[in-house]
């Protein structure tokens, strides 16, 4: 990256904010995120800047604490997706032929399937928890990673330096480790960031549908769902956590897309 694009700067700034909110939640949040009180559905005021929810919990504090859950699921799911998808993509791209044909068939089926519906059914069966959500989302998004890396490997393996390495008698595993992998790393990192944003997006949708991290843990999708009942009278309860989801998704999307952008 020769220069820093506006997207990247904006993305990194947001990343600092989001990470700080997750790391320093106990110090930033003025109240406990799970302690219920009697001041139910309070209007936003100096005391509760976003008001309180139907159980009297401070909405702002819940949003700050919710960053942890969201980041945990997002990052863990992206790690699973890359660890699972990258080797498949590498193998398909490098060996081509029958292995590639078979792997592409499998990848294409899974890409075409509704990831959200699959995740919905799988989490319904396994039961919602941070671990289950991360693994499920990682598995359903892995095919996209595999496909992308396969494409990148196709490009790299045709380059002159790979041909030169082959001509000097380098083994396949040497070429993969020393030439193909380093040259696909940037695409992998970019896709990693995109996958974090995708996983946060999807896990928030799942919790909105009632299959997120179980209560009383502060979970943005669940907060939007519970708060939507009070939308006409207390819009902040459901809209504020929605903004939190959108900003976090935007953070990782900006970083990922700016890494893909400049050559």
């Amino acid at each position, binding site marked *: 990256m020769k220069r820093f694009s506006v997207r990247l700067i904006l993305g990194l700034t947001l990343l600092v904010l989001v990470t700080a909110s997750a790391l320093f939640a106990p110090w930033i949040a003025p109240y406990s995120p799970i302690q219920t009180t009697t001041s139910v559905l309070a209007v936003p005021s100096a005391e509760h800047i976003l008001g309180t929810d139907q159980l009297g919990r401070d909405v702002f504090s819940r949003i700050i604490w919710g960053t942890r859950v969201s980041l945990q699921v997002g990052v863990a799911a992206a790690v699973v997706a890359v660890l699972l998808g990258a080797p498949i993509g590498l193998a398909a791209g490098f060996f081509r032929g029958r292995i590639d044909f078979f792997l592409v068939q499998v990848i294409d*089926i899974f*890409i075409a399937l*509704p990831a959200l519906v699959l995740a919905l*059914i799988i989490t*319904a*069966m396994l039961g919602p928890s941070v671990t289950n959500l991360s693994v499920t989302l990682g598995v359903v998004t892995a095919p996209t990673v595999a496909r992308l890396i396969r494409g990148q490997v196709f490009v790299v393996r045709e380059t002159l330096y790979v041909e030169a390495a082959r001509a000097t008698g380098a083994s396949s595993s040497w070429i993969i480790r020393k030439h193909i992998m380093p040259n696909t790393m940037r695409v992998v990192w970019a896709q990693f960031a995109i996958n974090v944003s995708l996983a946060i997006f999807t896990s928030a949708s799942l919790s909105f549908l009632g299959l997120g991290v179980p209560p009383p843990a502060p979970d943005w999708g669940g907060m939007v769902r519970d708060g939507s009942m009070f939308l006409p009278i207390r819009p902040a309860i459901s809209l504020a956590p*929605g903004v939190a989801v959108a900003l976090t*998704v935007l953070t990782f999307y900006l970083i990922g897309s700016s890494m893909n952008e400049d050559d």
Partner: protein
Amino acid sequence: MIALIASRIAIMIPNVIILTFLLFAATTSFLGTPAAIMLGEDASPESIAELNAKLGFDEPLLMRYWAWVTDALSGDFGRSYSTQQPVAEMIANALPLTMELALWAILFAFFGAALINSATFLKGFVDRVVAAVSVVGITVPNFFLGLLLIYLFSVQLRLLPTTGWSPWENGAGKHLLHMILPVVTLTTFYFSSFSLVYKAEYKSVENNLFIRAARAKGLSESRISYRHILPNSVLPLVTYAGLSLGQLVGGAVVTETVFSMPGMGRLLVNAISARDFPVMLAVGMVIIVGVMLLNLLADITYSLINPLVRTAG
């Protein structure tokens, strides 16, 4: 051409069988036997075993799968555990709504992306608007966008109905009025991703010699955009539309829930929270098989309008 379609179908059949079997095996083995769910925690093991035998759950998995498939093919998806209604009936009631929602969204996204992004003669303006909409579409989750639209247009401006749905029989106008916000919610995401795909292709087609020739002939920019570049850049969108059908269904599930519309999404979500196994299984199967069939359709459409694939097929 026929050979191509035949080979596509030949690849699809084993895929459908494997996937539906996996779904069947997963749902049945993870949820435990339905008798245990139906009779509750206090039931004696004997009564559970008895009901299992009655429902055919003591047979091996492969046999049960086969029985389920043959029943399903003749239109019998069993009965819901919670409402005792035939599942096929529930699906028949819910499916048209979801399909309509998805159809509107894909039509608007497809034609919107192609027509709006071709308006390059308006220079930077369109680009900037599309870029702004795209960031919203890709980063704002459906459920939040839907809620935001409800808050703006229904709660604050009181222009549109908040949630719910009105069937066609109660008047087309009322029906469409209820459809506006859900369709906008669902379309935004697809418009964004379709725009990215279309713009990339548009730019590469623009570099062709025949475009330069058209320009040299003195054709107007709008004519070049719509008559020369558009028809040559629309093909990847067909493929992409086919590939994103799965996502579209996922988006529809969420959108239906936000707007409390009685479609497949709500059926699935309710079935999951009630652990209503036959409904869950049937909805999952219909969605998966439906998406695969529509994908096949997109593939065939693609090869019909693209002669290059036909000969290479």
